[in-house]
């Protein structure tokens, strides 16, 4: 499902458009939200909402992705987001 990959990368590019960060390379599936784009936890919350809004299928249950056992994940790649959304939409 390349469509999901394209949508999410486009969405993140648009999201960070006026964040005043300069990227050395374009956003790819390997880009990490926290380490490469400087996301805080509240940024991740808003990004999840933006993704859910984009696909228009309501809540997708991102807690499955954001929590491993009793720990919140400390970072997330764009590829992990894409794989999660593809799985949920299929």
């Amino acid at each position: 499902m390349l469509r999901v990959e394209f949508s999410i990368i486009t969405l993140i590019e648009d999201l960070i458009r006026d964040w005043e960060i300069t990227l050395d390379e374009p956003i790819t599936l390997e880009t990490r939200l926290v380490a490469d784009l400087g996301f805080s936890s509240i940024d991740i919350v808003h990004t999840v909402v933006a993704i859910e809004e984009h696909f228009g299928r309501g809540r997708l249950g991102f807690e499955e992705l954001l929590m491993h056992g009793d720990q919140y994940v400390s970072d997330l790649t764009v590829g992990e987001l894409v794989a999660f959304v593809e799985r949920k939409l299929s």
Partner: protein
Amino acid sequence: MIRTLFIGLDGATFTLLDVLTQPASDGEIVMPFLRSFIAGGTRAVLRSTPNPLTPPAWVSLMTGRWPGQHGVFDFLRVAEQNGEGFTTLYDARDIRVETIWAIASRQQQRVAALNFPITAPPRPVNGFLLPGFVPWKHLRRNSYPESLYERLKALDGFNPKELAWDFERENQSLDDLSETECEAWVGYHLPREEQWFRVARHLLASEQPDLMAVMFDGTDKIQHQAWRFLESALVSSDPSPWERRMRALCLRYFRQLDQYLEQLVALAGPKAQVFMASDHGFTHSTEVVRINRYLYEKGYLYWKSSDGSEQFTRREASAFFTHLDWKKTLAYCHTPSSNGITIRIARHPGEPGIAAADYPAFRARLIGDLETLCDPHSGERIIRAIRTREEAFPGPAMHQAPDLLLTLRDFGFVSIKNLEPVVLPRPYPVGTHHPEGIFLAAGPGIVAGQRGEPCDIVDVAATLLYSLGLEIPEDLEGRTPEAFFTAEQRVAHPIRQGAPTLPVADGTRQAVEASAAEKAKIIEQLHMLGYME
């Protein structure tokens, strides 16, 4: 033409405003405009939601429904994930009923709604919506229409970083700050309100919406942290230079707010009806009540021991997290702001929690234990009121609310930390929410110099719709307070009840995910309403 101007003042209370609109000992009146506004109109106490908290209360104000109907109970929403608590924020998709922005929009009224909580992600309106409580990095995408943001950026002095919610900053407690940092914290709210005022002024002047609504929330933030510099009874008679500066800074905020009110009312023009309201009032709390610690001591709750990780230690120190043993805990409090206790029910054998059949007896025993938490000296109950969710949150969203809602004797918010003792006096009083806020009205057709009977927060929606000349949907839980309006106004514009509100897509969509059985039922209902093929 602007028919209706609504100004929200988060946490505003007559306890303070009645003082700031009177001459002080030096003769100064801090809020002279508000004084004349109140004198020329009607004022009433506005009773907040059962838990007088910003998100549920503003959503009740915007929908005319109590939380059991609208579905927003707190800032944080907690879902269980693999037996662990997963925490995220409530957002506009959680609101199960129509807002006045939507009701007015679909009747061709143009609206502008600025800085209201739980309005992101924005739902389409006939006009403009800029949500509150959204960090600046996400404001553009949450503006409606999105072009509004670009338009505001072109305004002289517009600074989204000053305007928007700063999550890290807002959650700081002044206890951890130096005196200089404290001053900076209070001072930070002055340019913030200036930014919201400028956006409001711009849209008022250039768009003239039928319903113009803006909320100022510095009142709540400053009162939380600096109440002891504001409430007359608490202000030191012999203040230190720093205390003097803190009070002066707080008063500067209210002086500035008064000027914003004056200019917005002037811009709306003499034909507009103007309403102001708060989501809850304010008072001071004098003691810490560690409710989870009490539940632990009574055997309802079990703590998890540290795994030595950095995340565990960080969350242990936070006021917003609590490390529970989810396999054994039967009842606990999620968040300080909820003032609520959740009882865990095992849905399947072997799951943690009590059996569903034991619920009534278990809850009765829990209430009994909470009633016995008393002041060792006076014998007075620490928890003045304990309401079941059927009492506090009746409606289709009730099952998402805590099982019990507590009101502490000093109206404080509970602590969920694992510390002893359970009840502890605070080093100094801190601001906390009070169930009674304010409701003010003035303008053509509104009775001058009147003290009205107390209203409910859900009445504001009905009042604003009436002011716009619209029918009041029959399923609104609020009513228009007739006595606010002159006899001539009521004859010329009788209060009319009309068709019910329309169903909201998100509320049902969320419910669709609940269970397959519920899903079938909802699809059936949607069929009947003609919403689905």
